[in-house]
Every structure is written in C-alpha cells, then in structure tokens.
C-alpha cells in the first residue's frame, strides 16, 4: 500500500484565507463570516444554501467547516464550482448543526473555515473518461467536481454520471439535470429505489446502473460519493469489473472537529480524513477492517 504521511501533509492554501486581520496572524480556528444569499430546497430534507460571495479559494474535492453561529460547525464539501462567484453548500438535515442551519433565513450570517483536505487530482484525469457514481446527498460534492470538469470539458474524453436516489422526489438537482444531459461529452443515467407514475428511467439501487460500464476500466478514474452502504457495494462492483484500486476515489465520512489534522477525531486507520481526504482511494482504505460505517 502506498503510504502517505498525514500529519506531515501541509495546507498552504489555508494560510492565505484564515488571516483574521488580528495581529496579522493566521488563525486556523477562525471562521470567516458570510451571509446567506439564497436558500433553494432540493428535496424534503436537502437544501442548497448559496452564500454571498466566495470567501476562500478551493479546489474540487476540498471541504470547509460551516458554522451556525453559537451552535457549532460541521464539515461539508461545497457543491458549487471552484470557479463560481458564490459558494454553495447542498446539505441534508441530519444532526444538531444541520437542523439549526435549516432554521436560518436569507440574509442570516454563517461562518466558513477552510478549505481543508486534498482536491481531486484533475490533472491525472486529463484525456480520460471519468466515471462518477453518486447516491442521495452525495451528489453535492460530485456537483462541484462535475462543474469543475465542465469548466475545462475539452480536456477530458467523456464524463459519465450514475446517480441514484430513493424516490424521484429525493433526486437532488432535479432542476439542473435536464440541462446537464444536453451537454456534449456528458452521459447521465439516473435510478430510484422506488419509482412513481411519472418516472421513465431505471428503478433499482444505484448498482443496477453499473451492470454495464461503458468506459475503459483499465485507466479511467471513478469517483464515488454517497451513503456508506452504497459506497460498499459500488466499490465491490467497481473492483470486480477491473477498475484500478488507485483510480477508485471514495468520499469518506468521519467525525471531524478541527479540519487541520490535529484533533485526531477523523482518523481512519492511519489516515486523517481531514488532511489526506476527504477523498481517499480504494488503494488507501482497502486494508482497513471496516472502512465504510
């Protein structure tokens, strides 16, 4: 297994953005205040929060800690393009911080801290077919990746997206997908666990979309984000059809506090999800007893 050195991995980008103006010091614990510009409900429990501007320079795959003032912070990968004017997060209401976030209104103040972690190695994806698999709210970080790829779409051979949700009403970005499907060089297939009368596409869990994989598995990168159970079975399938282990990029979920590889909360085996991740390859995590929990 290729070893990385989590604690030695530095984060230069952070230093640029966390200057607080206070003693000209870089405080990695300080959150940059920013207002909510717009709130767009995506499904019954998933909402996109568009912030007023871009408080930090990030690359697709990196994440930030989002703060609800006085409540706390939680880690999220932005769902907007790194090249966008405003930063966006698409978030599912799950715990304490997200519930407080869902109470906020347009114009309310939140805080962001970051960016943290490693970006997707987009340079390595050049000239290749890119196979993206998502489930549920896992589409949020994948959208950021997708938009970053679209920004330079000529550099890539083709972008495939395979996405599954519980029901048609649970599909995130249903408002945007039809336009994406029209883009040359993009191939999107959707599935739902349970369809309804209007549903014209595949029915079944997301792995049914992987029965036939139209890419050259030997040198294509595949990027997966979704609930742990999905990660498990999708990874199994991707390994089975012959994707290189180092080309299977998996978004890891873990408890996180500091985001800068110090507090120790997010450690999965030898990796700090916050510094080495949040995306690790199957090559990195396959030795861990239960990588997806």
């Amino acid at each position, binding site marked *: 297994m290729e070893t990385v050195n989590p604690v030695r991995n*530095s984060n230069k980008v952070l230093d640029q953005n966390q200057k607080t103006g206070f003693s000209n010091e870089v405080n990695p614990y*300080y959150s940059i205040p920013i207002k909510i510009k717009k709130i767009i409900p995506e499904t019954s429990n998933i909402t996109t929060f568009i912030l007023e501007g871009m408080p930090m320079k990030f690359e697709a795959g990196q994440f930030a800690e989002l703060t609800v003032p006085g409540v706390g912070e939680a880690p999220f990968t932005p769902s907007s393009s790194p090249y966008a004017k405003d930063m966006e997060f698409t978030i599912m209401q799950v715990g304490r911080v997200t519930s407080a976030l869902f109470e906020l209104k347009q114009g309310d103040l939140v805080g962001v801290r970051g960016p943290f972690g490693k970006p997707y190695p987009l340079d390595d994806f050049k000239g290749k077919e890119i196979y993206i698999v998502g489930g549920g709210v896992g589409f949020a970080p994948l959208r950021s990746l997708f938009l970053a790829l679209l920004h330079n779409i000529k550099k890539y051979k083709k972008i495939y997206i395979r996405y599954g949700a519980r029901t048609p009403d649970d599909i995130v970005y249903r408002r945007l997908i039809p336009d994406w499907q029209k883009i040359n060089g993009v191939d999107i297939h959707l599935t739902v666990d349970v369809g309804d009368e209007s549903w014209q596409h595949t029915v079944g869990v997301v792995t049914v979309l992987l029965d036939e994989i139209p890419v050259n598995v030997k040198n294509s990168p595949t990027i997966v984000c979704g609930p742990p159970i999905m990660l498990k079975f999708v990874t199994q399938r991707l390994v089975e059809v012959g994707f290189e282990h180092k080309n299977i990029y998996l978004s890891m979920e873990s408890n996180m506090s500091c985001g800068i590889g110090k507090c120790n*909360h997010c*450690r999965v085996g030898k990796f700090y999800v916050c510094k080495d991740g949040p995306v690790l390859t199957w090559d990195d995590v396959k030795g861990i007893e239960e990588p997806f*929990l």
Partner: protein
Amino acid sequence: MKLYLLPSDSIKSFIKELAEDGSVFYPVFEDDKTHLVKFAEDKDFEPDFEKIRTAENIKHFFFPSRDVVAKFPKDSRPKAEKQYLFGIKSCDLRGIDVYDRVFIKNEPVDPMYQERREKTIIISADCPEPADCCFCNLVGVSPYGEGTCDINVTKISAGLLCEVFTKRGEQILSKHQDLFKEAGKDNIKEREKIRKDALKRLGKINEKSFKEDIGERIEKAGKKTMQDAQKDCVECFACLHACPTCYCFLLSDYKKGKDVERVRTWDACYYAAYARVGGGANPRSDLKDRFWNRLLCKFDYFNEYEGFFACSGCGRCYRGCSGKIDIREILWKL
C-alpha cells in the same frame, strides 16, 4: 558542553529573581505527591527537585483543558504571558515534543500553542528516584533532560548542576550570572553517578523492553488480546486526561453576548461518541476498539510519522487507573 553550579543557598534567590520576569512554577512534595506551584513573594517555599514527576501533567501550561481559540465574527484573544516551568521531568519533555510536532511542525501552525510555547521557559530537572510506575526507559526517554528544555538541572549535594541547551537558556544564566559558579569536576562526577543510579533503578523496575516491532504487533493483535486488555476498564478516562502526550481535542461554539466563542476542550478517544458521525454510525462503538485505538495511536501511527512514541513512560495512566491496568503488561505480552 559547559556546566554551571547554582549553589544550594542561591536556589531560592534564583527563583525570586526569575519571578520578576514572569510567573515561576516550581515543584513541591506534599502527601506523597509532587505538584507544580506558582511562586508567590509572600509565601514560604521549599522546592523539591528530586522526587518523580508531578502528579498532574503539565500540558495545560501550553494547551489548557478549556481554551478560547477564536471569536466570531471578529477574532481576538488575550496574549500569553511569560512563564518559567522549573523542575519538570524529562517524561514531560516528551509530552512537549509530541505537542511541538502536532501544533507547530505540522502545518498549519496553532498560533495559541506556539505563542505559549515561545513564552514558556523550561528548566527541567533530573529524576534520580524513578518509581515503580515509571517506564521512560522503555519508550526512549532518559530520566534527565537532553533537549527540548532550555536548561536542565541536576540536584547534587552542592546545589543544582545546570546544563544549558538553548540560546534562551544561556541568556538566563548570563542575566543571573552572579548566582552561578563554574561547575567543578567533582560536581560533574556526582551527576554521572546520580544518572547511572537512576538508569540502573529503571532497569530493575522494567527488566523487559518492548519488542522492536511493537507497532506492527499492536496492529496485528487479535480480538481476544484486545478483549482481555480492556476487561478491567471502567471507562473513567483518567488515563487519557492524565496523559502528558494525549492531544485530542474538540471544538465547540458558545454564545457570549453578541459574539460567539470557539472553545477547545480536551477530548479523549475512549468516549463512546468520539468518532460517531452525524448520521449515527460509529466506527469504534465497542470499548475494546477504543481501548486498542489508544495503543495504535501512541505506539504505531505516531511512531511511524514522527519517529518516536507518543508515550512518555510517566506512568500517570497506571497511577490514575481505577482498574489498575498497566499499559506495560499489555505491551510486554504482545
């Protein structure tokens, strides 16, 4: 290497003079335990440089158990003040080594830690009387300061024999040069004997060493070994909070008037919710996994990244343990 002697009758004067420049903490021995106390002009004081490390770890001097690390929306914080830690033991220097790696060497730098570290002058003292709980010799720590400290002192019959390690240490000695003498050969000989005896004593307390590949052995341990190791653990977490090398923390936000304070508190990987995620999944819901995680962290991962164990051999974990679990026994068996 130049050694200096601080004669017995000058020790108190030295502490008094240091106190004009910052807070001075020195060790006292009370009720069978050593504690660091703050020098106060109006109090009688009797420092003791010979007993083992303090009962409490010293990490709160750099990394307090509750610390405001940021404010929102406008950041501010009080500046750290100069302090002298006089007479801490070499096992606690290992703790500082660990923190230096985590909070300074590995970017981004933690500005709170760095500032406190820079404002803290460390004068360590030899540990001539290791106790049964001590095992610094098993984790690569000597019973005397060999670095990390600014000055190390050895209590000898004539006073304190001082060895300087940093420029800052030199400046202190030159500032207070009237109190010091150049050390004689007999002083140095006495130190050699004290150190030899301390090492001999440690060798007797801990006859076996840990196996060379201890990290790998911890990684490969079976479920039964893990189960047996934690059977007496009652989850009081004393071991982790007493540990001078544990550095886990948690950030929480609290409203304070119109502002928000981000507070860092010590955390411990034995807490059941430590690794639990928002959706409820928990990679270490079982105590045996959390218990073993501590060993992996200290003896496997940290060693792999930094080249030394995140353990000082101070034995506070054993002394504080309600179930009297001895980490040495677990590691010896592997």
